[in-house]
């Protein structure tokens, strides 16, 4: 559906070459949600803007919907772009138009008749749940509502592909989730292929089927979300995955934590689960095998694709020998276990 072949983009700033993208290739199959994740300045924005040729790549080929976009004339390209939707971090709604008129905008470009516009816009605003706001101007809407209008607008011309340029980065976490589930819904309902770029692993985890990690203009790793979460090969990938879980020792424990196993202290252990960890009821197993109780202090376990991952903080209550056996058992089952101290 979308195919990039050896895309290279070089900018010239004050006569020095900046390689925004070097030799990037990727393929997105029809109906897939593909995420590209990277830190700011990694080239992800340039990458997504190359796909609909808002940015012209220096070298390489772009095929969308079976058409090689780089070979088209400006007029043909304009027509092809109507099949490629795009939403943006800052929504880019026209302030001079009402919600209704904003959604009607792409239809006007196609010279759609007034009756058809009315019908289609009503349908789309119903889909995104903003029909009651149709006569309002964007300035009076919240961020999430603005992005919904932008989504309705981009769907108006029935695109086969949707590009999301940091579409949730300006939104709060709750609104982010609602926008992501709307995107997922659109993807399922209309089989629209989605390519999104983001700097948040949470976005990838929430809706993507596949993910690529971009760093300094090259894709350093790509695969299905389950694969990447269970076998991350690159350090950067691991860091992105870790950023999707929040781990900290509660203040109350931190104060009591001592580094040495003195007195009656039990070990406080951080358990890290990743896709390779054994799919077994490990906590109950150690309780039975070693007579050790896992006192759960905090836990965050998540699922990305088929991979389960997360961190858990437990106090192991048992004899020193048995707690050591427990830790060895966890490690043997691909759970990273680390003693943080004794409480």
């Amino acid at each position: 559906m979308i195919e990039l072949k050896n895309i290279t983009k070089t900018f010239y700033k004050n006569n020095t070459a900046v390689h925004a993208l070097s030799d990037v290739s990727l393929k997105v199959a029809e109906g897939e949600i593909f995420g590209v994740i990277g830190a700011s300045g990694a080239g992800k924005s340039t990458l997504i803007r190359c796909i609909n040729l808002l940015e012209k790549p220096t070298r390489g080929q772009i095929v969308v919907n079976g058409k090689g976009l780089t070979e088209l004339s400006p007029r043909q390209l304009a027509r092809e772009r109507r099949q490629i939707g795009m939403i943006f971090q800052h929504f880019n709604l026209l302030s001079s138009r009402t919600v209704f008129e904003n959604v009607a905008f792409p239809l006007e470009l196609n010279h759609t008749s007034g009756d058809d516009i009315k019908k289609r816009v009503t349908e789309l605003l119903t889909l995104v749940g903003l029909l009651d706001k149709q006569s309002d101007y964007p300035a009076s809407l919240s961020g999430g509502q603005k992005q919904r209008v932008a989504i309705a607008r981009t769907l108006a011309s029935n695109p086969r592909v949707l590009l999301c340029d940091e579409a949730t980065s300006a939104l709060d976490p709750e609104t982010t989730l609602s926008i992501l589930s709307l995107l997922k819904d659109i993807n399922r309902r209309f089989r629209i292929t989605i390519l999104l770029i983001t700097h948040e692993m949470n976005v990838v985890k929430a809706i993507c089927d596949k993910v690529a990690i971009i760093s300094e203009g090259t894709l350093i790793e790509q695969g299905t979300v389950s694969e990447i979460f269970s076998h991350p090969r690159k350090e950067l990938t691991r860091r992105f995955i870790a950023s999707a879980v929040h781990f900290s020792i509660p203040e109350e424990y931190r104060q009591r934590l001592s580094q040495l196993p003195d007195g009656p202290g039990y070990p406080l252990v951080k358990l890290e689960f990743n896709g390779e960890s054994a799919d077994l009821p490990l906590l109950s197993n150690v309780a039975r095998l070693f007579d050790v109780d896992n006192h759960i202090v905090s836990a965050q376990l998540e699922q990305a694709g088929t991979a389960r991952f997360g961190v858990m903080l437990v106090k192991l209550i048992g004899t020193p020998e048995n707690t050591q056996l427990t830790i060895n058992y966890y490690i043997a089952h691909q759970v990273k276990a680390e003693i943080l101290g004794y409480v």
Partner: protein
Amino acid sequence: MSEPMLQMMFNGLWETIVMTFVSGFFGFVVGLPTGVLLFLTRKGQILDNRPANRILSVIVNIFRSIPFIILIVWMIPFTRMLVGTSIGVLAALVPLSVGAAPFVGRMVENSLLEVPHGLIEAARAMGATPFQIVLKVLLPEALPSIINGASITLIALVGYSAMGGAVGAGGLGQIGYQYGYVGYDTVVMNTVLVLLVALVFLIQLTGQYISRKVDHRK
């Protein structure tokens, strides 16, 4: 003030209004496309064209740097050719329009620069042609700012037309000059001033009102 004097004042005011608005109109007819082209051919814009931008910019700068009083005199042969005379309201319209056009051009260019670049990008992504971008994105989005610029232009034209009055353009400027400066009639001079001030205020307030009405940015 005698009745013929009042009649003359009224005529003068009317002539000034005609000169201001008609030349303002022609100034926009030429200046608006010029401003749009100045903007579109800038670096990084949709019709990025350095040579075209440079040439247009130089022409605009030349016309903007000629003092208006000199422009009137300098243009006399052209004005005669175009309207058959070099005195009166009709003749004044020619240099006034020519003086207004580059002013309007720069002002429109500046207004368009205020439109967030993301909007142009979104329109391009939706497959809008450059013409559609100008008509459906740039001009509507810049409208509040263009209207503010229009009132500034009209106010400048009130001043220019008064200046033209000194060399036979008619209007309040001529009355003020002849009766006030040459004849030293303070009543006439001050009446002319009050009328000019009132006209300027009216334009400014109307401009602000319309600009606010069409501004939906907040």
